[in-house]
């Protein structure tokens, strides 16, 4: 008998009382100002949230970020903003090792934990979300309305997601960090050393 059959048989042979699934339709937390709460939590986990008007506003704000202006190699996956390296022309993701700054699309934000949903739909190499020294996530707000880009809690977040494609998706909340050395929080473990979230209205 294969190990699969053995494991399944072993699992099926146990006397386990049946148990019902709970309803996920409950009164989950709502914030008076979800956008402001998102900003506060993001700040607490080491990131910054900024609302900008259009691509021009985005360019303007990026120019204020020293890590961006000092960057030699940049990647942009946002229409209207050009980076120095074209992600689609990179064959081997290892070539992205020395990217200094990446501007990437985020789909929406979650107020309760400052997470932004990022997928590889428009990213040829998903490592671009993790390997640059610094990143920013750009969220286009429907109808120019920031509220529509921010859900209150994770239950609402999952209601927005679909799983038909073999898509890689990640909730990113702040820059990479660690507290493994005597509980001292250090920003910039392996991934991005800084994270800006831009809401484009």
């Amino acid at each position, binding site marked *: 008998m*294969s*190990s699969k059959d053995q*494991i399944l048989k*072993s*699992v099926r042979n*146990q006397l*386990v009382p*049946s*148990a*019902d*699934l*709970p309803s*996920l339709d*409950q*009164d989950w*937390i709502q914030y008076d100002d979800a956008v402001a709460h998102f900003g506060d*939590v993001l700040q607490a*986990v080491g990131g910054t949230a900024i609302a900008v008007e259009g691509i021009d506003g985005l360019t303007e704000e990026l120019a204020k970020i020293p890590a961006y202006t000092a960057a030699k190699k940049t990647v942009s996956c946002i229409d209207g903003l050009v980076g120095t390296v074209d992600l689609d022309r990179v064959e081997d*993701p*290892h070539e992205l*090792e020395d990217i200094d700054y990446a501007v990437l699309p985020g789909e929406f934000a979650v107020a309760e*934990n*400052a*997470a932004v949903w990022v997928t590889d739909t428009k990213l040829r*190499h*998903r*490592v671009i*979300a*993790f*390997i640059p020294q610094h990143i920013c996530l750009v969220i286009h707000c429907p109808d120019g309305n920031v509220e529509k880009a921010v859900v209150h*809690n994770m*239950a609402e*977040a*999952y*209601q927005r997601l679909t*799983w038909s*494609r*073999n*898509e890689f*998706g*990640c*909730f*990113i*909340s*702040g*820059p*990479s*960090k*660690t*507290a*493994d*050395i*005597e*509980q*001292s929080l*250090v920003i*910039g*473990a*392996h991934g*991005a050393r800084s994270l800006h979230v831009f809401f484009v209205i």
Partner: protein
Amino acid sequence: MSAIKSYDHPTNADQFNKDQARTHWHDSSLWFIREKRDRMSKSLPEWETLRTCASQIKAHTVSKLADYLEEFEKNATARGATVHWAKDAEEHNRIVLEILQKHQTKRIVKSKSMLTEECHLNPWLEKHGIEVVDTDLGERIVQLRNEPPSHIVMPAIHLKKEDVSNTFHEHLQTEQGNYDPNYLTESARQHLRQKFCQADAGITGVNFAIAETGGFVVCTNEGNADLGVSLPKVHIACMGIEKLIPKVDHLSIFLRLLARSATGQPITTYSSHFHGPIEGGELHIVLVDNGRSKLMNSDDYRNSLKCIRCGACMNTCPVYRRSGGHSYAATVPGPIGSILNPLRDAKHHKTLPFACTLCGSCSDVCPVKINLHEQLLTLRTEVKNQKQLPISKTLPMQIASFVFQRPKLFAWLGGVGKFFLRTMPRFLIYNAMNPWGRNREMPEAPPESFRKQYAQRVKKKSDK
């Protein structure tokens, strides 16, 4: 401090307690995290609802685990992953090695997986000439020191920055005497970047696997899992069969609980959802039983399969905080480890259910409501019934039982006890025969027994 060899918890804890200052420091470090967890749990009015839901989802999954495992395999396969089944640690290691050898892998990067630790994968792969690099910073630190992790979420919680600095100086040629965590983390970042870029394959654990979609989620703060598996073509994900949940929407419950319970964060920095391999790559998922299915049958212990490995029970446990993770001599230490390990290997881990004050704090903080302290109490009975208890524990209990059944004898012995406590020289009271007095003072003998005081009180009342 090297790895402790003995399985005997009291002996190991004694060793840890030799350095009193360090014991206090360890205790307060963990309590600090416990307090962060408390603040986070109070930031959500629905905290208790979340715990109840999580517990119910896990109970349901275990009740239909075989169906969900099959559903998961079907959906994961449809997304291009290859699913393997391993009944024990040995088979798990063999499967992983076969995949790596097929790709002529020389170097791999691994992100924290307690399951691979449980299966002793690293020494097995190293024996076969493969370089294994743990990429979680804490895990890398203990790996360089040739130690096991002492905590499942914070593997190097037992080490001070001086220890880390010395380790890095020796292995990564960092500046001697530079104890700055920023400097040390930066050095590790540079060192591990090389390893990420050189790796031929990446191995990760799995926090949650979803039957409905055939995908799985890995949570890290450092992003090491993501870097490790999005550069090379081969990703191997190793998971215990209890990691399954039925639907993707259920993640909303578990992701809200996990980081808050573990480190007091609102969520981990990265919560990655993997569905199928990267373009042109391979994704292998190894489903491991290794004794888990045996736990399902027992009404007493089934609940321990709900564990999501957040470590909250360790951070709050007064015994863990004062005895250190290594004293448990097991991959999973603390309260949950004191249940899982003896159930797998009763002979070696028989002292663990006794490494507990039955205070119940672990059960109170558990995000999936595992009745940890009750299970520990049940396990003690089992250890006793298996006649595994040393005579130093059974004989005094037998004597106590004999005395308690005889009120007059009890009263008389009480008087004798008080007399001895008052009059005997110290060395006759505090010696090897009295383990209680080893680290604390015996209570002062009261001037009169309770029995006598009570009798006088009753007499006074009737006299009135």
